[in-house]
C-alpha cells in the first residue's frame, strides 16, 4: 500500500522531508507573491493553492485547469494556463536542490 511505503520513504530519507518543510530564502519574484522572505516548499504550495481558490482562478469549464492572473503568471513560468496536475512540480522549480 502506498501510505506505508511513503511513511517508510520518509523515515528512511529524512532529507526528503527536510526539503519539504525547511524554510528557504526566496528569490525576489516569489517574495513579492508570498509576502514573506522565507517559506517552506509545503507552505508555498499551500499559499499558491489558497490564492487560486480565493481568486476563483480555476477554469469554470474544466476545474482541473487554472487560468493564471498576472501575479500567478509571474511565478509559474509565465504560462497563461496551468494544469493542477503540474502545480507541485512547477512550485518545486523554485526550490532547487541545494548544492553540496
Amino acid at each position, binding site marked *: *500500500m*502506498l*501510505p506505508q511505503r511513503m511513511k517508510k520513504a*520518509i523515515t528512511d530519507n529524512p532529507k526528503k522531508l527536510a526539503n519539504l518543510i525547511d524554510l528557504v530564502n526566496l528569490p525576489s519574484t516569489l517574495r513579492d507573491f508570498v509576502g514573506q522572505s522565507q517559506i517552506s516548499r*509545503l507552505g508555498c504550495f499551500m499559499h499558491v493553492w489558497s490564492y487560486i481558490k480565493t481568486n476563483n482562478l480555476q477554469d469554470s469549464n474544466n476545474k482541473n485547469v487554472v487560468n493564471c492572473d498576472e501575479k500567478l503568471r509571474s511565478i509559474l513560468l509565465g504560462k497563461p494556463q496551468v494544469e*493542477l*496536475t503540474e502545480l*507541485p512540480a512547477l512550485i518545486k522549480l523554485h526550490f532547487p536542490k541545494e548544492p553540496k
Partner: protein
Amino acid sequence: MGKIPPSFRSAIANIRNPSSSSSHILPPQTQPHHFPRKKPSNSPTKSKKPQKPEPTTPPPSLFKSPNLSDAKTLFDSILKSYQPSSLDFRFHNNLLHSYASISSLQDSTAFLRHIINSSRNSFSPDHSTFHILLSQACKSNDLSSLAPVHQVLNLMVSSGVSPDKATTDVAVRSLCSQGRLEEAVELVKEMSAKHNSVPDTYTLNFLVKNLCKCRTLSTVYSFMDEMRSRFGVKPDLVTYTILIDNVCNTKNLREAMRLVSTLNEEGFKPDCFLYNTIMKGFCMLSRGSEAIEVYNKMKDEGVEPDRITYNTLILGLSKSGRVKEAKKMLRVMADKGFLPDEVTYTTLMNGMCREGHALGALELLKEMEVKGCSPNACTYNTLLHGLFKARLLDKAFEFYEMMKSGGMKLETASYATMVRVLCREGRVADAYEVFDYAVESKSLTDVSAYTTLESTLKWLRKAKEQGLAV
C-alpha cells in the same frame, strides 16, 4: 484479588483503628499498595472521622516547600491541634506521602523519623509506610544505581518490617515506570535471595510483559527459567498468554504452538482468552483455515467462544478471502446469542470490499443501523475505501460528502485511495478538494497529505506521457 469492597471499608477502618500499631492486618490491603500514589485520594473517603476532614483532604497542597524543617513545624502544629489518639496510622502515611511527592528521599526519610519520634505511641511504620519511601527511591534521580532502594530496604528491615511480596511488587512497578527494566530484574532476584520475599505471579507477569516488549525472547525465557529454578516461581496461564501474544505479534507462530504444547504439559488448560490470542496470531497472517482449526479445537475442549472469538474468526476469514464463510459465522454468532458489534460489521465490510463487493458492504451498513449498532469512524473509512476502490465514484462521492458533513476524519489509507482514484479518473480538482478537507479536518498531517498528493500527481504525469491515462 485483595480488593476491599467499598461497603466494607469503613467497617475495616473501624476495626483497625484501636490497634493501629499492628501491621499484620495489612495483607488484605496489599493489592492497593501496587499503586501507592492512589492512597491519598482513597484514604479521605475511607477515614470515617468527621472531625478532622481538613488535614486529610488537602494533603496535596499541604506541604508547600520541600524544606524539611518547614515540614516538621507543620507536622508538629497539626499534632498539637489534634489528640494523638484521634489520628490513625493512615493519617501519617498520607502526610508522608504528600511530603515525599515534593521532597528528596533523604528529607522524607528524616521526616518519617521525625513522625515516629514525635508520636511514639500512636504510630509505628508498617509496610505501606515504607512502600511510600520505596517507590520514591525507585523514582529518584539517581538512575545509575539501586543504592537508594537498598537504603530504604535496609531501613525497613532494621525497623522490624520485613519486605514481602507487595514490597517487591511496588519496587518492580516503580522501576519499570521509569524504564529501569534491568534494575527491576536485578532487584527481584536480589530480594528473593536476600529477603526471602519471592515475587508472586502478578509481579512475575508484569515483569515478563515488560521484558517481552523490549528484550529478546531468549532473555525472557532465561529470566523465567532462573525464577523457576532458583526461587520456585512458576509461570501461570497468564504468563503463557502474555508470551503467546508476544510471539504471535512477531509472527513466530511455530514458537506459539510450542508454547501451547508446553502449557498442556504443565497441566494448564487454555481458556477462551488464550485461544483468542492464538487465533488472532493466525488471522494477522491471513491464515484463516488455521484459525478455524483453533476454533474447532476450542469447541472440542469445551471452551465457550465469546464475542471476541467470533470477531477474530470473521477477521481471519475476511482476510483470507472467505467472505461467505465469514457471513455464515455472523449467523452462528447471532444464534449463540452474541450480538455483533461495530467491529464485527466493520471487519465483514472490509472483507466484502476486498472482494470488490462494496455495494454489498453498503447494504450491510444499513442492516447494521437497523439493528441499532452505530458505526464508527473506522466503519465509514472502510466503506469509503471500498467504494473508491470499486470505482463507484458517484456513490463514493456521495458517501464522502456525508462523512464530511458529519465532520469525520479520513484515515491515511482511504485518503490515499481517494486521491489516487480521483486523479486516475481525471478529477484532479476533486483530489485537491479532498486534500483540503484532509488538512482542514486534521485527519493527516499537512506533510503526509501533501506527499501523497504530490507523488500521485507525479505518477499521473508519467502515466500520461506514456499514454496510459487520460
